[in-house]
């Protein structure tokens, strides 16, 4: 990167199963207001532009970002919507600063999953000629991926269930989490089956919420905060669209995205050099598979990694101290919230979920069935 760019402030709502008390722009307003209060920034004087993450389908409205124009301060200014996971909104905001056109850009993401029938919408992500009529949605596609992954590498349902147990336990330390509890592997394995092998507790719950953060150029960041969190590396990558064109057990696009981010950040051994990671697993098996794609372990060793406790709190490389997506975090918001959580870790402000001494962190976002589009962001204090 030709210049350093930092995260100078983050804000999240608490994630809840339904926020029927608030419309989308009111949710967004909550986080924008808190962000400005905490950073002391003026939305007019200090922020140049906004990048939001959202989607017309999920918002149930054409050109859905017009709902937030006023509350994000975009009246007579720029706001662009990235119609992908929030991590890509962070990525675009970063590029707006790197291009030298802006020195402070706000990123917002909102989603009210409680308003919509996700399975119906997700079905529209499959091509209308051959796949849509098979009834595919993200859950049934994920079930194919889970089957393939578990079959190829001998990953067990118990190992996947351990991810759920870890996530919901970690979530007890996160005041923003929606679901936080001590459960057992047996309880996960006894929860209702949705699409073999995926059970209810293997999935992220329906969730409403919003998240926002501000990126600033080096010069500006240093004026705003004495704890800037620097973006050290970033990479994204598309995989093939047709599920049959990929080996779903090997997440090629994540491997490429991670390598791009590591190269930029000068990371050679991610497991040793990264202190904490917040990754987007919409289903329990995905966290294990993403470990492998991120190079935290070898191919097929995701199960072993969770068995060894490497990724639990207090382990060698804690993953999702916040509880991650399984503890509740809506689409679009997920990626921005991962970045926000890692930023809090870098600042040492993650409270009870703080990983002591964390200096380098990884945030990860996904879009599309079986993680077709992947984004990896490396942050450093």
């Amino acid at each position: 990167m030709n210049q350093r760019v930092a995260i100078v402030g983050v804000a999240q709502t608490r994630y809840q199963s339904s926020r029927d008390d608030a419309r989308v722009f009111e949710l967004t307003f909550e986080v924008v207001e808190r962000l400005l209060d905490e950073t002391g920034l003026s939305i007019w004087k200090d922020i140049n532009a906004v990048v939001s993450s959202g989607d017309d389908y999920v918002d149930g409205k054409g050109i859905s970002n017009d709902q937030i124009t006023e509350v994000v301060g975009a009246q007579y200014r720029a706001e662009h919507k990235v119609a992908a996971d929030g991590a890509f909104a962070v990525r675009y905001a970063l590029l707006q600063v790197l291009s030298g056109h802006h020195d402070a850009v706000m990123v917002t993401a909102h989603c009210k999953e409680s308003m919509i029938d996700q399975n119906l919408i997700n079905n529209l992500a499959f091509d209308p000629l051959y796949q849509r009529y098979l009834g595919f949605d993200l859950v049934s596609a994920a079930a194919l991926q889970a089957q393939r992954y578990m079959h190829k590498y001998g990953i067990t349902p118990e190992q996947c269930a351990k991810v759920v147990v870890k996530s919901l336990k970690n979530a007890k330390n996160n005041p923003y989490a929606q679901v936080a509890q001590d459960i057992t592997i047996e309880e996960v394995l006894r929860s209702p089956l949705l699409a073999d092998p995926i059970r209810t507790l293997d999935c992220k719950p329906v969730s409403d919420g919003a998240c926002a953060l501000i990126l600033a150029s080096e010069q500006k960041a240093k004026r705003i905060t004495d704890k800037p969190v620097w973006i050290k590396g970033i990479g994204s990558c598309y995989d093939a669209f047709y599920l049959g064109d990929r080996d779903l057990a090997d997440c090629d696009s994540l491997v490429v995205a991670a390598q791009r981010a590591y190269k930029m950040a000068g990371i050679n051994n991610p497991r040793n050099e990264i202190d904490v990671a917040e990754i987007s697993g919409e289903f329990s098996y995905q966290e294990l598979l993403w470990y492998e794609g991120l190079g935290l372990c070898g191919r097929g060793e995701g199960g072993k990694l969770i068995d060894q406790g490497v990724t639990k709190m207090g382990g060698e490389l804690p993953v999702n101290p916040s509880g991650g997506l399984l503890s509740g975090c809506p689409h679009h918001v997920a990626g921005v919230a991962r970045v926000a959580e890692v930023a809090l870790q870098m600042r040492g402000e993650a409270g009870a979920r703080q990983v002591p001494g964390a200096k380098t962190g990884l945030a990860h976002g996904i879009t599309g069935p079986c993680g077709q589009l992947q984004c990896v962001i490396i942050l450093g204090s």
Partner: protein
Amino acid sequence: MAGRAAIVGVGQTYHRSKRPDVNQIEMINEAVRAALEDAQLTPKEIDCVLFGNMEQAEGSYLMDCWATEGTGAYLKEGCKVHTGGTTGASVAEAAAHHAASGLFDTVLAVTYEKQDETPAGMGPLALVQDYLWAIHTGAFGWFARMGRKYMLETGCQEEHAAITRLKSDRCACKNPHAHLRLNLTMQDVLNSRMLLYPLRLLYMCPTTAGACALVFASEERAPKITKKPVWVKDWETVHYEMVGYEAYFTSRMTSMETAANRIYHRNGITNVRRDIQCAEIYEPSTWSELQFSEWFHFCEKGEAWRMAEKGVSDLEGEFPINPSGGVVCTNPIGCTAMVRVAEAALQIRGDAGEHQVTRDVKRAVATGFGGSFWTEMLLLQRSWD
């Protein structure tokens, strides 16, 4: 210091109302191939693919993911950007940011719309307005009302709209990519069906199937790819409160004035028709071309219809506006604003063929217009300085 980006490849499909011969992916691929051929690049040489369309128009969710088949984004960086009618300009701006960031040498920007696969063309637009408060009139209501207001306030008569529509048609007939190429007469225009007074069918943009792709390159890479890079000197996005109530009740479109004022001020443009030689603006109706020209300061307030009467905005005129035939002749919605950028770039290169304007175009503006009366404006130049 701001980084620099240039357009080094331009490609678009032949725009038509129906393309039953191709599916969405195949149509997108036509534009991508054309842009890569124009830039003399192979897919391997592209670092990043940015994508956009009007999200709900074809009824497909996460369209960029399916489109990887046609865009060649497999194992490349990228994402989808969506801002309604301005999408094409937003994706172009995003590509300029990417190419100027220092992280990417080459960026492919792709937009499309295949409205023959849209179950109801107006469906997505009806969903634009606030579902609790707004009265649904759709695009016809907006533009008819704005047209009527313009007539009442400036003394413009319908014949001036007709003159402007004939100019668009003459241009479109010279542009092989344009959708409506009708060889119209004054009589044809004035006899066309009235949709909502004073908006006739021929004054309204059509529903089009088509795709456009642009290749952007970094400052270092651009001159190595082409002898005729078109520099993206500056851009501005101006959003505005939901559904633009202002445009209903006043005769101003402040998002357009604001965007234009900022671009002109930052780039030392004091005499617009002297300092800029051509404009490709997003005019959803013929009436809009007149009004928008005033809001962009191409002429004084209330003077646009006189400008049209004198032929100032013709291909051979002093200040050509929409030499491609414009949106009223070609409107693949999510792609339309990118076609403006593409056509402006071709004018600067001198590669517009039969619809190349007489005036030497060193500098041009391209604009996008979006659902909530949003404006995006890009300033393109033959040389950076």
